[in-house]
């Protein structure tokens, strides 16, 4: 935990899916010790020709599906992935109710053991049977009995994105997809990329800034269970295409900046492992080897996100930046405002 970070609730949450161009941008220039507000359309001019921006192109899953156990108990499953070739995927279970109740106040989910059945989907037309193949405390492995095509299509028809207590109107799939997203690997939206619309991508490239991608299966931000949450982030899969590795390496050789859009991109690039999963936790003690800048959302100072941000700048500058943004009413959480940290 970062002692100098702002306390929680510094940035009130954005409570609806605001238009992308409503996003405000805080710019923190570490070498100059400078903190100011800029417009998002200035983003290309804040970077230099030859700099590289790396985005996470994971699409957001319809991760939240409702159903019931064989005993008729209501259950919500939050999928960490869609079923693979073997028909299996992992999920976290939640009890009765929905997102309008804060997760920590939800009743506990029904107990599930290996071999138990759950029925996913509330409409009889789209009901899927799944068998529990791994049972942790609240984390379970499921095997869907239908073909993978049918299971994936049905989960899309029945599921919706993970919802948040501070956003009353249900979020739809289109509210939580980044402009450039493709494969549905993210259990929750890689929200740092939300303001990066096509005009931004186009302007960055015209300015000589390369925009490249990796795919990182960002997991759940919270399970409402203290013991489970303390172990977040769990092991997450990522894939860095060879062309991205080359572009990033060339930028490093040329002394250019590598800007990560989102903490998931930082974790994948800094993991630099041939094993394509990561549970790397980054904090102020981490020496960044690849990434020299970060575009991210505004988050309170008590999260693993805030710990990661502390790797980019000294604690006093971080505290000043947070105060600056807080006084100006920047909004936080998934659909909130943005912060660009240009590293030293």
């Amino acid at each position, binding site marked *: 935990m970062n002692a100098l970070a702002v306390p929680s609730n510094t940035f009130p949450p954005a409570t609806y899916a605001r238009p992308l161009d409503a996003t405000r941008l805080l710019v923190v220039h570490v070498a100059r010790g400078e903190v100011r507000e800029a417009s998002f359309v200035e983003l290309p001019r804040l970077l230099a020709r030859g700099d590289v921006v790396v985005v996470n192109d994971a699409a957001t899953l*319809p991760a939240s599906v409702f159903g019931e156990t064989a005993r008729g108990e209501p259950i919500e499953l939050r999928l960490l992935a869609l079923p693979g070739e073997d028909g299996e995927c992992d999920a976290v279970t939640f009890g009765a109710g929905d997102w309008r109740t804060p997760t920590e106040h939800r009743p506990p989910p029904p107990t599930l053991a290996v071999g138990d059945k759950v029925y996913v989907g509330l409409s009889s037309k789209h009901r899927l049977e799944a068998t529990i193949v791994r049972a942790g405390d609240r984390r379970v492995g499921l095997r869907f009995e239908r073909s993978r095509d049918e299971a994936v299509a049905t989960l899309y028809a029945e599921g919706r994105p993970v919802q948040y207590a501070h956003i009353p109107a249900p979020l739809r799939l289109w509210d939580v997809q980044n402009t450039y*997203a*493709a494969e549905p690997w993210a259990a929750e939206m890689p929200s740092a990329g939300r303001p990066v619309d*096509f005009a931004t991508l*186009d302007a960055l490239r015209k300015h000589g800034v390369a925009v490249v991608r990796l795919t990182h299966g960002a997991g759940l931000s919270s399970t409402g269970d203290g013991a489970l949450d303390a172990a977040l982030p769990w092991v997450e899969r990522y894939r860095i295409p060879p062309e991205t590795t080359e572009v990033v390496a060339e930028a490093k050789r040329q002394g250019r900046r590598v800007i990560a859009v989102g903490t998931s991109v930082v974790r994948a690039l800094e993991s630099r492992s041939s094993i394509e999963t990561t549970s790397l936790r980054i904090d102020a003690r981490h020496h960044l080897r690849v990434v020299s800048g970060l575009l991210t959302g505004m988050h309170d100072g008590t999260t693993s996100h805030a710990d990661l941000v502390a790797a980019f700048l000294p604690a006093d500058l971080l505290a000043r930046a947070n105060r600056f943004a807080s006084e100006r009413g920047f909004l936080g959480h998934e659909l909130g405002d943005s912060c660009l940290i240009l590293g030293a």
Partner: protein
Amino acid sequence: MGMNLRGKAALVTGGSRGLGEALGEALATRGAKVVLVARDAGPLAEVAVRIRERGGEAHALAFDVGDKESAHRITGAAAELVGPIDVLVHNASTLGPLPMPFLLDTPCEDLEAVLETNLVGPFRIDKIVGGSMALRKTGVIVHVSSDAAVSGYPRWGAYSVSKAALDHLGRVLGAELGEHGVRVLAVDPGEMDTKMHADAMPDLSDTERAALAAPAAVAERIALMIEHVETIDPGARVVVSNWSAPV
């Protein structure tokens, strides 16, 4: 160098019969991983099974492209099954109520419904897939058009309007995405022996019907066009019978 379709991810709407079915087969034969979309799950699944029996890769997603809710379901499920989409073919379309009425007899709601399926539906999917293609600097988007897009035939009003707008959607999209490595085409397949053609013109004689092109032959040429897409102007409208592959 054209686009080699082997291993590419292709999404084809209206894939349960006619040109869409034939395009699914033509792309799968070239080694593409094909996802077919149509409303009717039964016939669609049969097409996918047939392609797989011949050694191709095909998946079936039963969704309605005219339904707003379907757009992300289609693109998300398709990307999960075959990876980021490289080739997107908008073949699904509707003529509207049959027999096709004069424009003055066309209820406004029917015009809206035709635009929803033939124009807004493809636009929604283009918006989703186009961003990923631009980021990856690769991709081909094909809008299946009709000569009704350029000629004002009586009683073809709603369909004509939707196809003319779809052609122009492709022109602008092609201009915007061209420098990001994404090619957009409007393809006029010509008159084919399909259910849609029979719905539109039920009174053709056997001789007239025999003169119609076979969907499989047209699909082969469209697949060839995709392979040679770099020789075609971005956003261009191409009439299949007027096009030949560069030698």
